């Protein structure tokens, strides 16, 4: 008998989704209660995940098709916490657009379920199942504000391109299956050897599909449009949560089934990393919409995360995970600020709308200042440490070129972050924004900003948690 306790989080969240669906259908005006219950469900799932799986080093279930190890539990927890925070700060935004419906929390829960399956997958089929579950939920979320043209456009674009990438991914999986005769990662890992050149196609297809999901250059084209068009809270979800899951799968693929083929994929990852870092930094300079700018900045941040993966070492993987965790916090803070730019039921998204913000809203501007400098990677803020660990791992492998290009592109990136700071602090002020924000929004902004600001006091804790992750 399998130890089902290990997949209890997934079981619980599936049951809650079904229950909430039924509840939503039969109860009138059930949005509020669905929202609250979903939050509750996520909390319980998080607790279960911590209790049942956090201390487990590695166990497999269901014919080794599901793996529970320290990486999967950590990433699940980050996913769940991210989903929780997104949900909790969404409500006032959704109410403004009159889309405060039962579907929203349920879709978020389903995509989280999909991600949890992805994170734990140790088998091509299980992985693909999770991927599709989360993608389908995300397509709908992108179009969630369906009365707006841009939102529908974003959803459609995302759907078409993402389906294409899923196709590539499947094709790659079938090639891999053809060569190894199994869908199980561990068996694939033993079966594959680098002599077979056609195998490279399989790897490339899979990597392309995955690169698409994390929007690494040159498979990033969808990101700016989708980020801009989707409702802001959904964009926040996009920039945080699916990336964590996709990154975990990325790590899993590279270091379990393809571990013996490092020579073949390392160059690809280095290229993706460098291209993302440079392109993200350069393309963000000309943007005028904050959400588009965040899209490009997230592309360049993914570049740094990939730099850690390219090292083929445990330190590199750990540094990538640290990077993405800190990035999630920074993104949460940034979007909390963005959600505060509201004037009489209208949200503002242009960079120029920030003009002179520091005069009327000194505290909000100070938070933005901290967040932006942190995103730019200036010490002593958290963003610096994220980059620092990545480059430490990169330099350990003597990949000087990658490190220097990466650090130089931080200088370019610093330019556009500084530009926002300039607009906030040096330019003429505009009208005041509303200040009656929900308590949760204020809380998430304060909390994440303090975390960013004071991370340097306790840098060891995160490392300690992450250092348990030893994939190789």
């Amino acid at each position: 008998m399998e130890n089902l306790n290990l997949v209890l989080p997934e079981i619980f969240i599936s049951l809650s989704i079904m229950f909430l669906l039924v509840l939503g259908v039969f109860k009138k005006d059930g949005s509020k209660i669905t929202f609250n219950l979903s939050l509750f469900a996520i909390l319980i799932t998080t607790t279960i995940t911590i209790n049942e799986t956090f201390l487990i080093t590695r166990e497999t279930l269901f014919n080794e098709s599901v793996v529970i190890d320290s990486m999967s539990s950590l990433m699940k927890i980050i996913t769940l916490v991210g989903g929780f925070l997104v949900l909790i700060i969404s409500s006032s935004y959704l109410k403004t657009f009159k889309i405060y419906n039962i579907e929203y929390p349920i879709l978020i829960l389903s995509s989280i379920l999909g991600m949890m399956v992805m994170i734990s997958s140790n088998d091509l089929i299980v992985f693909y199942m999770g991927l599709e579950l989360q993608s389908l939920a995300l397509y709908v979320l992108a179009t969630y504000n369906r009365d707006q043209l841009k939102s529908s456009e974003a959803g459609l674009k995302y759907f078409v391109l993402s389906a294409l990438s899923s196709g590539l991914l499947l094709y790659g999986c079938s090639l891999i299956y053809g060569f190894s005769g199994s869908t199980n990662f561990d068996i694939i890992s033993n079966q594959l050897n680098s002599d077979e050149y056609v195998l490279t196609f399989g790897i490339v297809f899979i990597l392309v599909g995955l690169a698409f999901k994390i929007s690494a250059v040159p498979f990033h084209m969808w990101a700016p449009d989708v980020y801009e068009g989707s409702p802001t809270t959904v964009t926040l979800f996009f920039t945080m949560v699916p990336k964590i899951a996709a990154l975990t799968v990325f790590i899993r693929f590279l270091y379990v089934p393809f571990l013996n083929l490092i020579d073949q994929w390392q160059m690809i990852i280095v290229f993706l990393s460098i291209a993302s870092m440079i392109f993200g930094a350069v393309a963000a300079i000309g943007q005028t919409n904050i959400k588009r700018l965040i899209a490009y900045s997230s592309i360049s941040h993914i570049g740094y995360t990939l730099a850690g993966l390219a090292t083929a070492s445990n330190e590199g993987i750990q540094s990538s995970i640290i990077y993405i965790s800190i990035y999630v916090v920074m993104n949460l803070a940034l979007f909390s600020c963005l959600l505060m730019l509201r004037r009489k039921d209208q949200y503002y998204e242009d960079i120029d709308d920030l003009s002179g913000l520091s005069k009327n809203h000194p505290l909000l501007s100070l938070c933005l200042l901290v967040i932006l400098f942190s995103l730019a990677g200036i010490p002593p803020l958290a963003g610096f440490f994220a980059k620092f660990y990545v480059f430490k791992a990169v330099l350990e492998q003597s990949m000087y070129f990658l490190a220097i290009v990466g650090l130089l592109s931080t200088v370019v990136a610093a330019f556009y972050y500084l530009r926002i700071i300039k607009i906030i602090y040096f330019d003429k002020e505009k009208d005041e924004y509303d200040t009656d924000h929900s308590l949760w929004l204020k809380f998430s902004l304060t909390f994440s900003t303090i975390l960013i600001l004071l991370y340097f006091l306790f840098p060891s804790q995160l490392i300690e948690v992450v250092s348990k992750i030893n994939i190789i």
Partner: protein
Amino acid sequence: MNFPILSSLILLPTIGALFLFFTKDKEGNNLTAKYVALFTTVVNFLISIYLWISFDQSTSSFQFIEDRTWIEGFINYKVGVDGISILFIILTTFITPLCIISVNNSVKNRLRDFLIAILIMESFMIGVFCALDLVVFYLFFEAGLIPMFLIIGIWGGSRRVYSAFKFFLYTLLGSVLMLVAIISIYWITGTTDVVQLYEIGIDIKYQNLLWLAFFSSFAVKTPMWPVHTWLPDAHVEAPTAGSVLLAAILLKMAGYGFIRFSLGLFPIASEVFTPLIYTLSVIAIIFTSLIALMQEDMKKLIAYSSVAHMGFVTLGIFTLQQQGIEGSIIQMISHGLVSAALFLTVGVVYDRMHSRLISTYGGLVSVIPKYSILFMLFALASLGLPGTSGFIGEFLILMGAFKDNFLVAVIASIGVILGAAYMLWLYKRVVFGKLINEDLKKILDLNRSEYFILSCLAAPILFFGFYPDPLINTIEVSVTDLINMHNTNIASK
């Protein structure tokens, strides 16, 4: 463990800034905020004086060391001072309160935020000078960019945005390579602790590249020709207090970095690259002196003179002679005092006339005599007149240079003459001559606070000019040991 005096020096200004953060920001004359900031910095100054008194001058080893685990098994938060760094700490704590007194007239809006920025800046600057771990050093070194960017950008002049960006991006670009070098050092030697690194030494084959990476950062910050162009812009646009901090302390971080890290960690590479430094320094001295001659803007002129003076500093450091290095340190301290004073004197007339152009002025001596006398003192100190601290530094540097390389020393000496030329010419055009501009007739002489600040700066300039022993005694043992260490490293190559 003793009382963590260095950490309290670093933390105190930040605590003051926090306190200010929670006070109410009043428009106009915000006296409370000013008194809080002033109190904090004066206390900090007194602590640093206590530090100097209890400092043991007879040893070159680091004192008041604090060593705490910061990131498990990787970085320790390690601070400590030796004879070289202690003077810079005192310079920082001395200049900052003067800056805060001087903000009366130059900063009109958001005084509280300005003071917070200055206090945080002070924390970072002190941190740079006591850090004994490369990562900790880098952290403080880079973190200083944030407050300075804001000081220039928010409270600066008309082209402030351009200048702030230029300052930030130039410095950041230089520094990222240093980060690569620091991490590489960690992987080569297994530590980033400076004291341990001094003992272990770094393999010769890595030294040249690492040296260049550190150089890229320090050269921008010094600034050396040809990457000095951010400095005039930043100086001109920054508010007076910002210019003072920049000139007096920020530039010294690089000179200090050269001594502590480039010389200390990479002795062989330092020897290899000495010609490069000589060339750049000599170009800086001659070239920027000539540029300074042609400036119409007083602040710009002083900014270029800073570049020339820092050229002397880098020249002195890489003579690798006792006199040269001691001269460089004294020159840095002296330049810290003199350039601060010069920017403040320019600030005084700028507050009254709102013009930095030399042509606006002329004949000031007949309307504001007190001001003219102090200005003269600082101008003479800047050109290195015997009896002022500027002389001691330049003289020692040239002495060291003559020992090492005759030609370089001769060319550098020409720079001294050029320095006298632009400074005296500036003084002549501003203070002497006919009083043509009618508005100048109503100009007021120094008020009490300005008089106080400038006298505070004049006193040490004169004192150390006549009696430099306290400075030399403090640094002597440390410099001797640094050179001995350097020579043994070279010999064992």
